[in-house]
């Protein structure tokens, strides 16, 4: 109870911080990147073993993840204490890609009528949650190591999602048009990473001055 009160006070403090220190200038970064496309060479055979095709929701289009990295970002404190959620719904994972800051927790609620068994082989976080169903207390995993964690369901072989464990609080996902927005970025030099898949990521060096917001057009391979 005391812990919860402390946490809420801390959140309130940070929320009010910009108003408490108006002199400390931060900048917003907005921009647009090419939305991730399905790699053409990965042809797909329609195959859902053991499930009714109608019971499966369409696979959500994975957005691109945009995040900023430099030497300071890994020392920044955890921005979100609430656990993230990676839900299983309609025999699919939502969201298809989930960026989080190192140290964050993720819960894996099952909203389907059937069992799921979420697991990961990724060295950044290996886990196997076992089989559980709707209504059971959703398992919770804390990700302490940065890296890419590919998440699968042992029961439904087509289900997959990716958790990006990042050493930065500056990250976001693009919308369907590839637009993104990063708010309140401390001035400095950053590497802006556009992550689309394990095999497709792009890094761009940017400088945030803090005097003005940045508007970046990184679509079609353009540099800032």
């Amino acid at each position, binding site marked *: 109870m005391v812990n919860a009160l402390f946490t809420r006070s801390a959140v309130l403090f940070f929320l009010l911080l910009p108003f408490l220190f108006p002199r400390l200038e931060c900048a917003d970064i907005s921009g647009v990147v090419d939305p991730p496309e399905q790699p053409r060479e990965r*042809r797909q055979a329609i195959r859902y073993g053991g499930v009714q095709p109608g019971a499966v929701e369409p696979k959500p289009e994975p957005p691109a993840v945009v995040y900023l990295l430099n030497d300071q970002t890994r020392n920044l404190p955890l921005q979100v204490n609430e656990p993230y959620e990676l839900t299983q719904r309609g025999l699919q994972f939502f969201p298809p890609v989930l960026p989080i800051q190192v140290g964050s927790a993720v819960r894996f609620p099952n909203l389907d009528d059937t069992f799921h068994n979420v697991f990961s082989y990724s060295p950044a976080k290996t886990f196997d949650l076992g089989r559980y169903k709707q209504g059971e207390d959703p398992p919770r995993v804390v990700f302490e190591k940065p890296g890419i964690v590919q998440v699968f369901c042992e029961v439904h072989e087509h289900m997959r999602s990716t958790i990006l464990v990042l050493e930065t609080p500056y990250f976001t996902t693009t919308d369907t048009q590839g637009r993104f927005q990063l708010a309140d970025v401390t001035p400095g030099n950053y590497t802006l990473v556009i992550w689309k898949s394990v095999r497709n990521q792009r890094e761009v060096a940017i400088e945030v001055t803090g005097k003005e917001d940045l508007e970046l057009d990184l679509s079609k391979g353009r540099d800032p």
Partner: protein
Amino acid sequence: MIYLSYKVKLILAMVLLILVVTASSLFFSTQSVERYYGEFLEKQFQQLSQSFVQDQQNRIARFSQSLAEATSNPRLTAAFEIGYTDGYDRFYYDLSTQLQPLLQRSEYAGSRDAPFFRFIDYEQQYLEPPESADSYLGIPAPVPEPELKSILSPFSTEVDEPVEAKKGYLRLNTTEGMKLFETWVFPTFDGSGLFMGDLVFIQRWNPQSLHQEGSAVRSGIYFNNQFFGPQEEELEAGKVEAFLAENMSLQSRKRASVDLSMDSEDYTIFVTRLPTHAAFGNPFQVTLFSLQEEKRILSRIQQTLLTVSGVVLVIGLLFSLFFGQRLSRRILDLVAGTRAIQEGDFETRIQVRGNDEVSRLGESFNQMSQDLALKEKYRSVLEKVTDASVANQLTSGSIELGGEERTVTILFCDIRGFTPLSRSISAPEIVELLNEHMTGLTEVVHKYHGVVDKFVGDEIMVLFGAPKSFGNDAELAVRCGMEMLGARKTMNTRKAKPIEVGIGIATGTVVAGCMGSEDRLNYTVIGNCVNLAARLCGIAPPGQLYLDGDTAAQVEDIELAETQPIQLKGFTARVPVFTPKLQHPTVASRK
């Protein structure tokens, strides 16, 4: 010209015929056997290669199905997905675990020939198994990993290529030498149906896969100018390779014999391209059928044919000999018969055997010789009853019936004092005497070409110049008469009772011909001079010869003496009569 008897010709023809029949039977039976055996082998080969191809396709289909189940495991997918960043150790391990049941099913599991696998991901990156993989991958690669990588990488599924299993063969230079490996490339999908890449299976090719149970057929694979067979050493792969290298360019299938001296057997080689993916090159299924069986069948047929021919030849020769002998004996009989007839033996007959053309010929011959004998009999009778030359002319048909006018000389000769003589001796003695007398004088007549017209009692009538003239018929008649007198005189020297004859000769024109009734004819002459000759004979003293003036006029070389003309009975005028001065002219004086 070589003389070949009918028998020899028959035998030669028989032998020739049997040889021709045997040779053509051998030729055509060999042709047929070779053709049918070739078709039989062709069919067998087609079945063999079809069943081989079918078997391969079934295996691929079965394996693809099993593989789809094995690779849809989400843990395998997870292992694959992390491989790109974290290494493929786990993936290879999971893959080998998933494939374990499949690989265990292989008949070569656990052996040197056991299949092994590699993976090429969807970006056509060859996933080299980590070093630790040796512990669970089973058999080590037959060639170093970098070499394997460069060999296998080209077989991965291209972006624009249809996603389907590929089959082919590889030649790998192993530590044991060049070996043939079967290779399958299976496109693999992960749990969500995404193409993961190609799972490549490699297995040392086992020649037994082409072998049929209980079959003596040898099959192998010809690939990149190398032959991989069941008993490579035994089969002398080099010879097969040389043969194939020469003949491969052409059609996909061909029949030819190649001599493999190893076991000195002939083989028929069938070659067909194995249906493999183009990327793997062109492997050919090569099947060698031994022609031993064909040879065996052929030699059995040949033996049978030759035996039958031999037996037929012997039987044919015996028959030819038998019939030839029989026929030639019968023909020789006929030849002997004709010779006998030629020599005048008309009584000859040949033995007629059987009932065929030759026996009919024999019958005809006998009939002919019988007819000839009869004719000869008639002839000899005719010659006895008439003069031989008349008989001859009669039989040859040169005497015209009805008569002709001819100038002839007629000679009459009779015995003086025959009537008193006949009274003094017995009748048989008379006949004997007359026969001796007539025979002796007839010989003289014939000597001078005279024709005895008739005997009348003790009188002989002789014609000269009829039916045929021999030149100076009158002189011949006179000489004949003179010799007849001489002959009688000679005969008289041997007789107790001498006989004296008188001769009259006259010449004139007569009608000569066969005369008499329809049933019985006589060749004779009718004319005045006949009468004159008879009268002259009547008046001629014993041992004397009288001739008339016409005869005397024609005689040149004999000196004649003319007597007083004589009044003859039946003649109105006196008739001049001549007689030779020398009654007994020598034979030498005649021409």
